[in-house]
């Protein structure tokens, strides 16, 4: 549905909004990569699978984002499209991206980690809102 970057004193917050929890997670991931690179510069042609679990869905969001950060460095890909399934605080997902190319991509900031700070999952009307702060 949509994502937003949130004001934060030293770093930046990400907010994913979706009609389902899964969609909110996907949008949250997009928000995180928008901190690193101009998403319009990416034409995804590679896919990686990601699996993670946690004690609750809020913590799972942090796990998901940190798993993507690890895949970014290991596979040398910026991700832009995501598909996840969540059941009992377990996530199975796919992320599509393209290789680093500093000549073609406007890179912005690296992200050290997704943190538990500001971590919140809310359901307003019919939509899910998931947010946390990234350590830049």
């Amino acid at each position, binding site marked *: 549905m949509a994502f937003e*970057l*949130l*004001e*934060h*004193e*030293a*770093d*930046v917050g990400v907010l994913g909004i979706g009609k389902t929890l899964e969609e909110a997670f996907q949008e949250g991931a997009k928000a995180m990569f928008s901190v*690193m*690179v101009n998403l319009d510069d990416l034409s995804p042609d590679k896919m990686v699978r990601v699996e993670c679990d946690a004690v609750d869905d809020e913590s799972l969001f942090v796990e998901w984002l*940190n798993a993507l*950060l*690890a895949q970014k*460095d*290991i596979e*040398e890909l*910026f991700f832009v499209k995501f598909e996840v399934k969540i059941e009992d605080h377990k996530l199975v997902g796919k992320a599509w991206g393209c290789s*680093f*190319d*500093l000549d073609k*991509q*406007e*890179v*912005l*900031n*690296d992200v*050290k*980690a997704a*943190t*538990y*700070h*500001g*971590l919140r999952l809310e359901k307003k009307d019919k939509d899910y809102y998931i947010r946390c702060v990234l*350590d*830049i």
Partner: protein
Amino acid sequence: MEEIKLNEVEPYVWEINKEGDMLVPGRVYGDKDIIQHLLDDVKQGKEWNALKQIKNVACLPGIQKASLAMSDVHPGYGFCIGGVGAFDVNEGVISVAGVGFDVNCGVRTMSTPFTKDEILKVQEQLADSLYNTVPAGVGSTGDIRLDKDEIDEVLLRGAKFSMERGYGTKGDLDFIEENGFISGADPEAVSDVAKRRQFKQIGTLGAGNHYLEVQYVDKVYDEAAAKAYGLSEGQVLVSIHCGSRALGHQIGTDYLKTLEAASKKYNIPIRERELVCAPFSSEEGQKYFSAVNAGINCAFANRQAIAHLARKAFTSVLGGSGDDIKTFYEIGHNNAKLEKHDVNGELKKLIVHRKGSTRAFGPGRDEVPEQYRAVGQPVLVGGTMGTHSFILHGTEKGMRDTFGSAIHGAGRAMSRKGALSCCRGNDVLRELRDKGILVRGHSIKGIAEEAPKAYKPVEEVVDVMHNTGIAKKVVSVLPLISIKG
């Protein structure tokens, strides 16, 4: 809303009285503006506030003397930035929050034989050469490609590994904290994911507030100390600010979970989700400490490689062998270190956490290179792209009052979003160029986010350290070239 009171116990030193679960008082270094900003955060009910974090750290088992914050204090994750917490090795804890997500992030400064005027003649070429030689920015990879066995060697051998790969010159190791490698590192304590993330990141600067700067000494505050340090007015220096890159980030992420479980196992209340810890002497605590030491070595190896790349860039423009570009000093500011300190007249072995705080040992300590030992350890304080950085020296008073710790930088005054809305990257570049500073970076937005006005005035935070006698000013430097990630 919780009320937090601060009492000025001596000029620039403010205390939070021991109350509730606090085992020691909190102590904050700051002038009235710095302190007011912290109090305003509490008054406004901000969830993220440094004073609350200082109080939380004061509740952790085994903490000694006080939970401290230096004058570059601002909210962090669990520990505030500028936070120092020293713990008894038998009764105390080790905390992920006290080290953070960039283990041994720090600064290397090198002295050069060049003067400001010599650099000005080749400023553009040198900026381009540095930008093209030192990989910087998110998505950049280095020339050093490692496999798993080689990464393990990095984690064990630190800067020595880079030296043996040809990245370094004689004498470099003598002027790095711990001589460029720390014992007690265990590669087995570092996850495969952390290692795989690092295969191509040795010798890369990273992004955010990391930088490589060519600077010149614009003012000498202490002639005798400057002489002992081999520094003089007009001299050109090179400073590198970066850390352990993705490997260090992953150590933080991995051990947040391990130590969350340990906090529960050992019944240590978790007052903030990131403020998890384990008894230092426990299996979990020792394993994390081994991983931190591995991360420390990774950062040493990284800065060593970058330093040598900077030498290459200099020689390609200015000729020579690069051997006369010498390591002045290198020190980290995100660490947990075993150190001996006087606690109420007793010399105790402590695990000292410094999160965004630089070790600042006074005269006579064995840890300080012999050439500098009479003066005290150099303290490298980074400014912004357009402002001063400082070199201070550690003092006896710092040893007594802050476990030999001082500030590490200016600290942000404005959010990244706030900086983007008030500063355009191209305007920042032009303004800096008008001041004689050339900036090279991959990200124009990143440059706007790191605009000088987004940070607190570094002079203000340095003056607090100087006026309290925790660390004394030796020289200030101004940038000529800044390479940003």
